[in-house]
């Protein structure tokens, strides 16, 4: 009697253990058909900067909102990002007042000059081809930049190889980063769809999409980054971006915090022009 009970128990245990082993084997064999895995995608730099050891973020032609100095803020932000996220040594130098430089160069040529002084602060204009000089008549530049139209004539400055070569010589031939930054206030009104929590007749909470008319204000950021070879003054590469942010009209967001929020979106793109980046993410492996 004493011996039979354990025998029954042992049979049952054996059966259960067998079933467990079978289940485990099935779980391993059949297992989940997918597996989420973290990956890091390396992105090669768009620009070959192996010839440079140093980088000079020279300054930007900036305009739009008067609440912030977009030239100074952009230079400071890019320098600090390059210091931590690129191999290049960042040159600490005074920010170039590029608007003044461009305006100075756009002044009508003296009668004694042999040709127009398009976009040059060096007096080396005679080196430019005659045809190019003839086509580049001085154009009066707007004193204040309010929109894209105002910033366009300033872009001729970036084609002035003599000027950039001189800047390059001054700082021992670095890679020069310059460009334009337009940071403009912006407003938009219209219907937007939003999820709203409502109580139904049974007192239950439900989320329903609602179309509401909203007046929103915010900012548009339009930077153009220009990369110049400090050895030759020639433009190597340029890229333009446009980002915007809108808030409820009642919301008072400081211009500077909006500027940084928008620049945050663009900085990885800027850095990927100069240095390799690793973008972290997850993907799903399948069986």
């Amino acid at each position, binding site marked *: 009697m004493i011996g039979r009970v354990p025998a029954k128990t042992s049979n049952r245990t054996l059966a259960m253990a067998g079933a467990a082993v079978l289940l485990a084997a099935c779980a391993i064999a059949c297992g989940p058909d997918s597996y989420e895995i973290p990956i890091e*995608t*390396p*992105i090669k730099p*768009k620009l070959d900067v192996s010839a440079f050891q140093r980088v000079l973020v020279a300054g930007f032609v900036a305009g739009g909102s008067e609440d912030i100095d977009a030239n100074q803020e952009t230079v400071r932000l890019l320098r600090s990002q390059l210091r931590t996220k690129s191999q290049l040594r960042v040159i600490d130098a005074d920010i170039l007042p590029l608007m003044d430089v461009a305006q100075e160069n756009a002044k009508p040529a003296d009668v004694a000059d042999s040709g127009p002084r398009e976009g040059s602060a060096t007096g080396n204009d005679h080196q430019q081809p005659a045809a190019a000089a003839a086509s580049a008549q001085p154009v009066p530049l707007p004193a204040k930049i309010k929109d894209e139209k105002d910033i366009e004539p300033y872009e001729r400055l970036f084609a002035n190889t003599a000027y950039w070569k001189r800047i390059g010589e001054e700082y021992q031939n670095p890679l020069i980063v310059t460009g334009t930054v337009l940071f403009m206030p912006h407003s938009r009104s219209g219907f937007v769809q939003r999820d709203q929590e409502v109580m139904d007749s049974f007192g239950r909470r439900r989320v329903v999409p609602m179309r509401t008319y909203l007046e929103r204000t915010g900012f548009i950021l339009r930077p153009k980054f220009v990369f110049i070879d400090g050895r030759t003054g020639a433009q190597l590469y340029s890229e333009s971006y446009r980002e915007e942010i809108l808030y409820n009209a009642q919301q008072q967001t400081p211009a500077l915090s909006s500027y940084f929020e928008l620049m945050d979106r663009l900085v990885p793109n800027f850095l990927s022009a100069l240095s390799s980046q690793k*973008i972290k993410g997850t993907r799903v492996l*399948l069986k």
Partner: protein
Amino acid sequence: MKRTLPIVVASVGVVLSAAPSFADSQSKSRSQARAEVEFGMQVAQRGLWREAIYRWEKATETDPSYAAAFNDLAIAYEHEGQLDKAAKAYEKALELDPNNTQIRQNYELFKEINDRTSSGKDK
């Protein structure tokens, strides 16, 4: 007519006998490829992505209709920075299994990164 009939019957017999063996070989190559895919998954989880690429390439050669193998291979190429190869592998995976939401989601995430490398470029 009398002579044709046995030939037709024999041909049908050959076709019918060949059909199961074709199905057998297909399922055999799928199970071989699946074993490679599973091994690739194990090594990828341990960070051995090159070994995983080798396994998944083998799987796609063994069974070129295996969408999951192309998906996994695309992920490994992406991790190794071989973006052109990754794009081709994802596209092949989607061609084989267009309704697979997981492959599509992987591809969308990949495209976001791939597009970023060329966005904003002026020259």
